[in-house]
């Protein structure tokens, strides 16, 4: 009779093996019994019935979208720094907390105001620049 902690490990290993078998058995069973017919276009990239063309690495992505990343970052940082504010909100008096909150968010909102003034929210202006 092995020591109890060895038996515990045996249980873990048995259950682990059972889990692995349960995970991979469907793949093995379906691989054994499935029909393996390959038509001329079965392995092609799925393109709604059209011919795929070009390379998957040849992606043209509008560089102008970096502006949206920056705006997202501005909002994101806004929200991120409000979590410690919420955590420490009960340590100061009510008016002080609200006031400091608005000052803080107001300064961070300047980033959004900046891109607004710059005309990022208007596609037409961007087109003229291009």
């Amino acid at each position: 009779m092995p020591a109890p902690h060895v038996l515990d490990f045996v249980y873990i290993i048995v259950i682990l093996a059972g889990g692995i078998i349960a995970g991979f058995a469907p793949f093995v069973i379906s691989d054994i019994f499935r029909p393996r017919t390959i038509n001329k276009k079965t392995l092609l990239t799925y393109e709604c019935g059209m011919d795929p063309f070009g390379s998957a690495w040849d992606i043209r992505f509008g560089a102008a979208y970096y502006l949206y990343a920056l705006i997202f970052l501005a909002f994101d940082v806004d929200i991120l720094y409000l979590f410690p504010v919420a955590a420490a909100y009960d340590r100061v008096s009510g008016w002080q907390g609200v006031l400091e909150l608005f000052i803080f968010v107001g300064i961070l909102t300047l980033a959004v105001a900046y891109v607004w003034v710059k005309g990022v929210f208007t596609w037409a202006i961007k087109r003229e620049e291009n």
Partner: protein
Amino acid sequence: MGDQTRGKLNVHSYAAELQARLERGEPGNLVVHDPGPLVRHKLADEIFNLCRANSLWPMTFGLACCAIEMMSLGMARFDISRFGSEVFRPSPRQSDLMIVAGTVNKKMASAVMTLYDQMPSPKWVIAMGNCAISGGPFAVEENYNVIEGVDKLIPVDVYVPGCPPRPEGLLEGILKLQEKITGVRHPFPQRKISDAPSY
């Protein structure tokens, strides 16, 4: 880059194959590799066919007005899910039933053939409506564009006539397909009407 140029010219790589099938007048199936299953066992086949028949996954593939009836079959009133085929898949990779619901014209034909190729085997086809069966109202002398019957392109298992067929018609087509797959009309025993709860 040669592929890209061909894509821009809108010439489908199945254009020649489409022409060949139309001239031959019978469906084709370009199989390049078919070694069959590793193990073929009668009982296993029966079990798998039972499972296949009771979970036919159709492809979301509406070509014309018949697709409206197909959609209504998927909704609560006719409820295709009673027979296990409510899982309309938006990709041929995951589906094993192609319901050709509508008119197939020549521009669409090569796409239909490609989608049929891309479905994993085993796969079945229901030709729904007169257009998909024989061209329907387009089967006239002046027709220049409509394929007169999708069975000129791909092998069809069940034909559901109508213009368009009612959802019950398509439902009967699916039951017929289940019968074709398993050999019995209701692969799983149905509840009798007298046993059904009354609402």
